[in-house]
């Protein structure tokens, strides 16, 4: 059954000379350099992309959800909220973009948690690899997913009659903003992935965070229709800033203060959750 040839007896490595432990010890270094960390992250991103290509069902959420939700919300709420479907679209599409990008973030945490349970992570942990690489790698690969989610939402919107006044540049800006936000917020879910016991609990906790954040925002309804106490929350909700920023870009082609607030919020999230994730990944052995 096996095809092992006789040369396994002769020694496994053909490179000449003996291993010299003292020389290897002398050549070791205490941590990965910045360049090494970057390379390792990209290699881990390559791995994640390979896995995506071989498990295309991973793309269901980023393809079906934009198509389904955009059409559904537009036809169900359009008349009630904006009088007709067409005038609801400029309000709705950026909202759906924010929503799909956030749900995609959740998948990042769940996938990471599942992945970490596999034997191959033992090997990753035993390799001289920067501790951020196994986390940042898959997240970098997920940029593809955010891009699909945001792009497809705009595309569906255009199909059912949305004509963004911000033009192509505005829409591209809006997509870029949502991809950046998605990547940044994914650190929260990555952190959840490193502290929870199973992929299921990541999913459960993520839903608890996502639902209030997306629905208690201006994503689907104008804030003026809300009671005062709720409007107060909606105004500080970072998702509202993302939605407003995306609207400003797509509908007016304007880089407004909302865009700035969104980016600032992203930086804060990364600054807090990236170190937390690495710390808990390192401890979670």
């Amino acid at each position: 059954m096996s095809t092992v040839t006789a040369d396994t007896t002769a020694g496994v490595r053909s490179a000449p000379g003996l291993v010299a432990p003292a020389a290897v010890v002398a050549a070791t270094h205490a941590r990965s350099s910045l360049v090494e960390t970057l390379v390792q992250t990209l290699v881990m991103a390559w791995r994640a992309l390979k896995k995506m290509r071989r498990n295309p069902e991973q793309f269901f959420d980023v393809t079906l959800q934009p198509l389904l939700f955009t059409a559904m919300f537009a036809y169900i709420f359009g008349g009630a909220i904006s009088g007709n479907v067409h005038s609801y679209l400029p309000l709705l599409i950026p909202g759906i973009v924010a929503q799909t990008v956030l749900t995609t973030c959740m998948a990042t945490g769940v996938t990471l948690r599942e992945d970490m349970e596999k034997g191959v992570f033992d090997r990753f942990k035993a390799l001289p690899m920067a501790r951020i690489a196994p986390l940042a790698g898959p997240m970098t690969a997920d940029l593809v997913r955010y891009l699909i989610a945001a792009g497809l939402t705009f595309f569906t919107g255009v199909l059912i009659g949305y004509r963004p006044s911000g033009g192509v540049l505005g829409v591209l800006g809006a997509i870029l903003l949502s991809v950046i936000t998605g990547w940044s917020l994914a650190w929260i879910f990555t952190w959840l992935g490193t502290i929870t016991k199973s992929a299921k609990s990541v999913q459960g906790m993520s839903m608890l965070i996502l639902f209030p954040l997306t629905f208690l925002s201006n994503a689907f309804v104008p804030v003026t229709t809300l009671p005062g106490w709720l409007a107060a929350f909606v105004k500080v909700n970072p998702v509202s800033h993302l939605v407003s920023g995306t609207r400003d870009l797509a509908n007016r082609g304007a880089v407004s203060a909302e865009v700035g607030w969104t980016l600032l919020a992203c930086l804060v999230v990364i600054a807090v959750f990236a170190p937390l994730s690495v710390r808990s990944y390192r401890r979670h052995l």
Partner: protein
Amino acid sequence: MTTTAAIEATGLVKDFGRFRAVDGIDLEVRQGEIFGVLGPNGAGKTTALRMLATLLPIDAGRARVFGVDVAAEPHRIRQLIGITGQFASVDEDLTATENLWLFGRLQGLRSAAARAAAGRLLEQFGLEEAANRPIAQFSGGMRRRLDLAASLITRLPLIFLDEPTTGLDPRTRGQMWDTIRGLVAEGCTVLLTTQYLDEADHLAGRIAVIDRGRKVAEGTPEELKASVGNSTLQLRLAPGADREAARQVVRRVAETEPVLTPESGRMNVPLATADRAADVLIGLRHAGVSIASVSVAQPTLDEVFFAITGHGADADAALDDTGSGESAPAATDHAVQEVQ
């Protein structure tokens, strides 16, 4: 100038909640040797190895690998060690080539060098035909070989092998042994855990026997086996035979206590030399005890354990945390010779 020990560990302790998995183990592994850690499932072998390999934090005690402190400088330790586990730790969704390329890149090889190393290892491990097949289609033996290959991409001075042959068929097992010997011939040091005395016997220069988180014996294979005799007479009594009479005969003739396995009427007698087997058989004939089958085998881990600890090797298998499902009975039926 004295050379640094490959591994120098003192008083290693690991607690999982209230269960102490490793309870003060000392190890000294010299450069260039194969050191065997022998013990049943759940004895703490894997846990001790994972601590030395920076995969588990060390709760108490300290360990150095080539003089580098494991707890203080894990990143440097990871540049010195390769580890191959009981369960293949390769990526299921990637092909064999992709796996090796990935691990090579993560260890600092450039893309072309990693690809070259992958090709070379696949050829040496007889996997080149399967190079571009998904791992999901690999047999257990192929996976294990790929797993070992993944630990050998760069030249590492210390290789940890956690039960490298558990669950493998005898032929693949022999090939794995040859590979391990090849490593040492190149200057590597190997720390190997195993449940099989014959594996430790064939490969290891020195062996530590671990039981319930403690080291209960250490020595060369010869020293360990001498403590239980060099061979074992395995008897199966005929149905209805007088077991107590048989036991008396063994005590009188072989001057030792037989190890009984009541469920199948089996009786194992440790012997200093195989020659004594005939004496026991003649004694049984004289006592009128009839025998269903007879064989002489090397002492098994069970007997070494019984001799050293006073209880069987699988007595605490229930505590196993690393998966006992794969334990194969290969050790006992190895090298059995019929004497009839």
